[in-house]
């Protein structure tokens, strides 16, 4: 069976151990996690997790079922039709061409967000594939550090 990339959204009760239950499930059953993000859903006692994973169709189906089986899981959404976004922070030496960096970030919904004595921090927020392109493009300006947020997604 063919390996596919999938984005899975999980709505869980925001309670102790819940992240451990989810990550433990992936570790224990040998599933792969590419990215995992989690944050509370405003004005509820729920959290939203977005997990990017890879596997064949049977594995993906098992992942969604096993996630659903966890007692604190309210909802599992597994779709190929998801709007996905990812954010990235990149630190550059101050000597680099700031106007070029500014322009590059602008093309990826970002900009320079912090300037220090000998570095600047820029950010971009875009589709995961585009974020990859962005990171490749930044190479020219000798990035010192790159931090990606992982993917967040919403069903269309």
């Amino acid at each position, binding site marked *: 069976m063919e390996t596919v990339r999938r984005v899975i959204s999980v709505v869980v009760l925001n309670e102790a151990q819940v992240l451990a239950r989810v990550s433990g499930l992936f570790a224990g059953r040998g599933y792969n996690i590419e990215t995992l993000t989690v944050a509370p859903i405003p004005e509820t006692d729920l959290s939203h997790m977005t997990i990017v994973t890879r596997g064949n169709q049977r594995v993906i189906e098992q992942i969604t079922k096993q996630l659903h089986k966890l*007692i604190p899981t309210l909802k599992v959404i597994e779709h190929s039709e998801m709007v996905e976004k990812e954010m990235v922070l990149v630190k550059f030496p101050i000597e680099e061409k700031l106007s070029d960096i500014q322009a590059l970030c602008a093309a990826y919904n970002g900009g320079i967000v912090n300037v220090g004595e000998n570095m600047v921090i820029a950010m971009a927020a875009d589709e995961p594939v585009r974020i990859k392109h962005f990171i490749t493009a930044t190479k020219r300006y000798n990035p010192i550090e790159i931090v990606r947020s992982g993917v967040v997604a919403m069903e269309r």
Partner: protein
Amino acid sequence: MKMSGAQMIIEAIIAEGVTKVFGYPGGAIMNVYDEIYKQNDFEHILTRHEQAAVHAADGYARASGDVGVAMVTSGPGFTNAVTGLATAYTDSVPLVVISGQVPLSLIGTDGFQEVDAVGISRACTKHNYLVHDIAELPRILKEAFYIARSGRPGPVLVDVPKDITGEIAEFVYPSDVHLPTYKPNYKGNDRQIKKAAEAILKAKKPLLYLGGGVVLSNATDVVRRLAEISQMPAVETLMARGVMGADNPLLMGMLGMHGNYASNMAMSETDLVISLGARFDDRVTGKLSEFAKYADVIHVDIDPANIAKLVDVDYPIVGDINIVVEKLIGHLEERIKPERYQVWRDILKRYDELHPLTYHDSDEVIKPQWVIERIGEKVGADAVITSDVGQHQMWAAQFYPFDRPRQWINSGGLGTMGYGFPAAIGAQVACPDKHVINITGDGSILMNVQELVTASENKLPVINVILNNHFLGMVRQWQTFFYDKRYAETDLSYQPNWKLLAEACGGAGYDVTTKAEFDAALDAALEGGKVTFINVAVDRLENVLPMVPAGGALYNMLLEHKES
């Protein structure tokens, strides 16, 4: 009413209708034991090891159909209980296990007897809780019992810090649970059920594939009725022995690695598998790509994650077997023609005549299979049979005439040596009027042998029949077949004196080397009313056959019992 956390635990146990609790005290759980001392509503049975306490609660649950309750202290008390949790989890047994924990203020400080119980047990419980606040204790206790019993049953751990058991707060035991994230589906999808019924009507070689779920959901009657009206043949997994009844002509036997020829051939040639509460375990399927190769699959299970986990399923039905099969019968009753499957039944009958489940009996040495048959002749449907893990377990499953569900209790999924004796203790507590016989090996029995004392003290006349081959027999069998007879660390020639061992703990012991001695010992044990060891010297090199080598196709069985 205001009370301590410890009292809340007692009140919850009583409110849940629990009458027996198995356990072992220690520092972190002492407040609860102090309350146990003061009450008379339930009986606490002190095992001599926490693993045994959980297995006993598990045996109690399997024999009675009720939830089993066990109690242990923190740290080593809890870690000793882990094998029990994992055993119950793999076989979907409803348990509530309460463990003490160090006080909240010490959690995370590597305190004395602190271990991360919820962390360790996450993968071997259906759910677990660490209680952070006494205000949530009543709700958590209620949920624990509800989750353990409902849906696909399983063990639930409640880890309670010592200061919470000592704290006083208002107690109202909830009458309901409020769990929006946990809603098992019992009903089954009507459209799928209808389609499945049509598939049965169209099939030429349908086969009922019955698993432990039929026992767990108390669905034996309705399953037997489905077989009866349709005259479809059936095979049972290790966990479903007793569902069809030994004398039922529709029962082909047990399938899988040590299944009989007709059952494994039935699965290999069927055109429609009707899987009820079974989970396509690798010990059942053998090589997956060859398993039920010509069949469509109807898969009924309460746990959606079991469906299509290993094989492709044509008719997935999530639901309770009782409800789903009742609906199936509704669709089939008027229309099904049992004659349709006559040819199929004849084929299977011929397979069974070709290679019946058998063994070569002997006058010189006792054959283990003979012992099982003999016990069956003596106590048959009256007894509850537990077992440990190994050859003896497979012979018991093959040769005992199981007639009803909950008569056969064994660790099928995890294969836990040391399970049988404490489980038998739990079963004896649940069924005081029945004979409870643990069929065990000279390896397995030593893994919880200290329970002789528990059984003696509580006057629980469990009979342990030790099929003694002076080997870790099942491992020795694999060494014979697949490791060129290099018997690495499986020779158990150095033996205890079994009779004296039993007697030293207040039980009775018999050493048996002939059939006549076995009969006499069994009679005496059945009469004796004491926990008993019957140490039976059996043929050392007997193998469990048929055998499908691990990973092989189900239809490729080693069949011949060669004279040794």
